[in-house]
């Protein structure tokens, strides 16, 4: 099963999201790579790398991130883990994207599909208009 990693500048934010997602889909491995080295606001290469490793399997991992430099750190973490590792970054809003990724991963979908589903969160209409 594809693992999900939540990368955020805030440990509390990502941990809260993880808790919420586990309630929806308890069987999907989810890890948090958030906060700086000391757990304060920021991002850390080590934390992201450890998070990816902790949920990694042959099925791969999809990473979702919140803002700006979180992407740079995630890319560096993936480079350090090595090109043979199946890790993909989803270009998606963190909460909605993670929700969709977790549901898709829970259906035992392959890595590519899980990432694509997360990215579809960009088109999500949150307040449907009656026709």
């Amino acid at each position, binding site marked *: 099963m594809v693992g999900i990693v939540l990368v955020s500048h805030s440990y509390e934010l990502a941990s809260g999201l993880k808790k919420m997602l586990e309630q929806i889909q308890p069987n999907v491995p989810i890890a948090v790579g958030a906060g700086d*080295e000391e757990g304060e606001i*920021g*991002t850390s*290469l080590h934390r992201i790398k450890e998070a990816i490793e902790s949920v990694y399997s042959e099925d791969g991992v999809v990473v979702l991130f919140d803002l*700006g*430099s979180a992407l*740079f*750190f995630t*890319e*560096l973490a993936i480079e350090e883990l090595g090109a043979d590792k199946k890790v993909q970054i989803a270009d998606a809003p963190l909460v909605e994207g993670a929700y969709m990724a977790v549901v898709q991963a829970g259906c035992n979908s392959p890595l590519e599909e899980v990432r694509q589903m997360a990215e579809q969160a960009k088109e999500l209409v949150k307040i449907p208009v009656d026709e």
Partner: protein
Amino acid sequence: MKMEGADLIHWIEEVNKQIKQHKSDLTKLDQAIGDGDHGINLVRGFEAVLEKLMPKQDQDLGAICQEIGMTLVTRVSGAAGPLYGTAFLKMAQVWKGKNAISWVELAQGIDAAAQGMKTRGRCKLGDKTLLDVWLPLADFLLQQGENASWEELEKLAFAKMEYTKTLEARRGRAAFLGSRSIGHLDPGAVSSYLIFRALAQVMKAKEME
């Protein structure tokens, strides 16, 4: 011009000093159009770099840059860590195994650093980022070759930093401000200016000896 491992370490010491002196300026600039963490992050990062560099001064320039790059990447939170970290990791590749570098080799290293940050940051010239200092300086060094001078390098770095005031931000938090970012210096361009000024000052002092 001959730049050796000891000069590289002096450079970083001077960067650390100047970043510390300008910490509150950098923070103020970054609070205006960024996340407000640029000064604090850089001080923390370069302190960590110096702690690591101190014990082993006999390494070649590539090994020293590798150490600097890895420390910045692991210890600096915010975009500055991966960007400046990438810069030094790229210099490390160009200067691998070299105990001294010429103007031409310096130009190659700075150019590799600028290109590396461009790829990592997915930004281009004119986006109001640190690249607006690094790319023109790399071009200047490549064009001048052995005729380059520290005086001119420092002047150009200052002019390019000042020029970022006129630009509209297209990257980072500042991009959300759109045209309201015009009139502010880019904090990354300011810290980049300090980095090049430190280099010029250290090397000028060496040549006077």
